[in-house]
């Protein structure tokens, strides 16, 4: 590899290479609530510095004193100790204009007449780039790159003409952008489903609307919503659906509930840990606790592993981590990553929830993400060994205001395609990632060339 392009050392193409601050000059005590954000290892897991994860901040004066550790858009940041091999650049549309890197990082600023950061990052993500970056690793204690700055300067990288670099960056970038967009779209979709859940089954908005129209009494709890409807707020849901809801409330052990709905213990409407068959030793998709999502319903990584013991699940099941601190952190998933009929498995510390028809499968997931339910689960934790957990039995004491069948069906009709679209996006992202990782080394080395480079460049420029 590298035969297609000429090579140049980082020394030749960098404007600057510099170390992060000493650990002693950027301690927890120096953090403030707002100011210059500090980039840490968790922000470096992709191609670009990830702004979605929260930052620690230092004051502007303090950042000023750490002169060499200040980075800007386009700077390429590496880790030299700990999780070595990480490399990402500060994207052109980053949230902040200025960052400070932390003590286990160093960075290079590209001479952009020679090399663009997208290309540098892409190169160091290839197997060959990783190999070169880590060839000088010391494995005593914390894995670290010895004398990272002077070493990096000596590393040769392939150096296609700048237009070619842009073309390569564009091809890889569109794939990356689509993966990122898929994630955002899934977030939007899930937020919609949960908003619907809350409106129908927690706040009973359609019932309040009907009661207002019918002039029926409104319980105190819903007075604010009713006032909005009086003041011209639109009907929360279209005509034929709102007609499925009653127009008054009645009292129950859970307070005021829509007339005709029933208060039922959770196990009457949702199966808890339903039996799923998987033979010992059989290789099946395995979702471990580390990969349980704390936000969103879809895990990033599911591996294959032969079954020993743990909770089993099928598509449509909702998984809830029941042990501290995973429960408090919100580790919850909706299983949509298996094939039909396939049984997956995971930690013994999951509770598997599966609504009974006519409630749609997604109902359990929306419930498991609902604040009130989570609070109940957290309150029900027991155990003395420091590993507190929710016994599945505790859910017997959670009661659900259960809607009549036609509303359950209407809810399913709404949310099922939302979740399906979201899982299609996740699936597509996986394909895109494989495509990107396949193309990456070929493009970087020049083994795969754009047929008509000129045309592509022209297109990017417009």
């Amino acid at each position, binding site marked *: 590899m590298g035969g297609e392009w000429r090579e140049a050392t980082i020394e030749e193409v960098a404007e600057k290479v510099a170390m992060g601050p000493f650990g002693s000059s950027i301690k927890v005590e120096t953090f403030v609530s707002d100011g210059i954000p500090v980039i840490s290892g968790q922000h470096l897991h992709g191609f670009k510095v990830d702004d979605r994860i929260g930052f620690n901040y230092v004051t502007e004066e303090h950042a000023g004193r750490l002169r060499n550790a200040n980075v800007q858009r386009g700077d390429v940041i590496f880790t030299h100790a700990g999780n070595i091999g990480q490399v990402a650049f500060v994207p052109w549309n980053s949230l902040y204009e200025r960052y400070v890197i932390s003590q286990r990082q160093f960075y290079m600023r590209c001479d952009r007449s020679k090399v663009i950061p997208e290309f540098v990052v892409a190169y160091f993500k290839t197997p060959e780039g990783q190999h070169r970056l880590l060839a000088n690793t010391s494995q005593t204690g914390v894995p670290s790159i010895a004398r990272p700055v002077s070493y990096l300067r000596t590393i040769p990288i392939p150096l296609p003409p700048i237009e070619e670099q842009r073309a390569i960056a564009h091809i890889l970038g*569109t794939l990356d*952008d689509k993966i990122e967009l898929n994630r*955002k779209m899934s977030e939007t979709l899930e*937020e919609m489903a949960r*908003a619907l859940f809350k409106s129908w089954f927690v706040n009973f908005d359609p019932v309040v609307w009907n009661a207002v129209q019918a002039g029926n009494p409104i319980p105190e709890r819903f007075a604010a919503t009713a006032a909005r409807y009086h003041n011209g707020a639109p009907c929360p849901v279209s005509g034929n659906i709102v007609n499925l809801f009653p127009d008054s409330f009645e009292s129950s052990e859970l307070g005021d509930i829509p007339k005709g709905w029933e208060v039922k213990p959770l196990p009457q409407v949702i199966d808890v840990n339903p039996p799923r068959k998987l033979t010992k030793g059989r290789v099946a998709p395995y979702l471990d606790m580390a990969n349980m999502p704390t936000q969103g319903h879809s895990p990033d990584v599911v591996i294959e592993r032969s079954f020993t013991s743990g909770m089993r699940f099928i598509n449509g099941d909702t998984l809830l981590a029941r042990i501290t601190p995973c429960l408090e952190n919100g580790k919850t998933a909706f299983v949509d990553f298996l094939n039909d009929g396939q049984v997956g498995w995971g930690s013994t510390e999951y509770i598997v929830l599966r609504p009974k028809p006519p409630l749609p499968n997604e109902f359990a997931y929306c419930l498991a993400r609902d604040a009130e339910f989570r609070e109940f689960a957290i*309150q029900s934790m027991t155990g*003395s060994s420091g590993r*507190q957990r929710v016994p599945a039995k505790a859910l017997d004491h959670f009661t659900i205001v259960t809607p009549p069948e036609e509303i359950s069906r209407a809810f399913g009709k709404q949310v099922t395609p939302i979740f399906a679209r979201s899982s299609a996006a996740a699936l597509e992202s996986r394909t895109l990632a494989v495509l990107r990782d396949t193309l990456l080394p070929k493009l970087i080395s020049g083994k795969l060339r754009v047929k008509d480079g000129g045309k*592509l460049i022209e297109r990017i420029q417009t």
Partner: protein
Amino acid sequence: MARKPQNKNSTAKVGFEQKLWQAADALRNNMDAAEYKHVVLGLIFLKYISDAFEAKYAELTAQISEGADPEDPDEYRAASIFWVPKEARWAHLKANAPQPTIGKLVDDAMAAIERDNPSLKGVLPKDYARPGLDKERLGQLINLVSDIALGDPAERARDTLGRVYEYFLSQFASAEGKKGGQFYTPTHVVRVLVEMLAPYKGRVYDPCCGSGGMFVQSEKFIEAHAGRLGDISIYGQESNYTTWRLAKMNLAIRGIDAQIAHGDTFHNDAFPDLKADYVLANPPFNSSDWRGELLKDDKRWVYGVPPAGNANFAWVQHFLHHLAPNGIAGFVLANGSMSSNQSGEGEIRRNIIEADLVDCMVALPGQLFYSTQIPVCLWFLARDKRNGRFRDRRGKTLFIDARKLGTMVDRTHRELTEEDIRKIAGTYHAWRGDRDAGEYEDVPGFCKSATLDDIRKHGHVLTPGRYVGAEAQEDDGEPFEEKMKRLVAQLKEQQAEAAKLDAAIARNLEELGYGG
């Protein structure tokens, strides 16, 4: 992130105690904290009784003309002050502190005091002469202790020494880490128990009393509420001999008259006929080596034979056995005790609940102890919930979930603040109807007055979290219609963007020769 200020009960003396601790700890050199503890605490105790003696001595000397004899031991016994023979007086030791023979002199002093004061028999440490103890450092330590409360009036000086003793106990517990939990329960945990039980008068009993912290706090409680110390009588038992000695000294230094027995509470109950008005205890958590199999037929197991592998419910039933008809017990147990169903524990708990003995349950936050990170709970059992002092609470149990209270004082330890303690105790007092305690009300997420039926519904599990319910949840405040409008607009934008990206990717791939 600014560090939280240490909110110790900030009296002016704290700085002084801390400084003293640092100085003493510097002299520890490479000795184990567990060993050094006895060296230091023994000296502080010696200084205390010597100071008390000297004060009385000066008083008597002033009255020689009236016929007083400062060298008459009976004068001191009459005033509940230990008689200190000449060779044991602090001035004598201080004068000889630089000598290499100082270890022997301290041992002699301890022996002489024990000889003349039978109540201290076997209590004082007497191995200062051992070769492992550096005599130069011992001399320096004696000088350090000499300076404590120097120049304070006699009363204050004694109080200061008592506080230093207590402070050092807590510091040693922290230094010893895991083992420290055996002799020391953090003050703020003890204070919750004491404030809730409010032991004004009667018999107070702690059958696993460690260094006697429950009694010291009870005494402080009585003092703080202008009660009379003489109104309570104190009974304690401790199985660890060295810990028992710490307790004896700890109480003597406070001037608390107590009966503290040494021995195994289960196998050698020192007060078999005692019926206490208050039981206050922090038994070892989940102890598995209590030789329970030898006690299968014990008369204390009214509610079921506790499993040999866990002493929790042996302790609970021991407490109940010693409770007077109107008595209340408050004690610390590991959380498992509230929900375990192993080896018959569920059965015992059910019987205790059905006998309507459970008055109140409190779940505490984790990380309160030096010895362990595990979260614990407080049990309050009342022999008779109808008793005349408070309202009739038969068939009712108060559940308090205090897991959200407390403040981290360092990376691994949490403390309950004065305000937390008041909140917990105040809730209990209001519920059981103490005078001037105010009106009780259920607070979702914090406290709930439950009926026996509620507890049955929960399978006789006593975890407060199950009963107090969920805290009221804050809404995000965005009305549904507006949220949906926003989300739909967002989705449309994303879909348009997706279409553009899909087209760009398709064209790129085509240009790579993979148009498909």
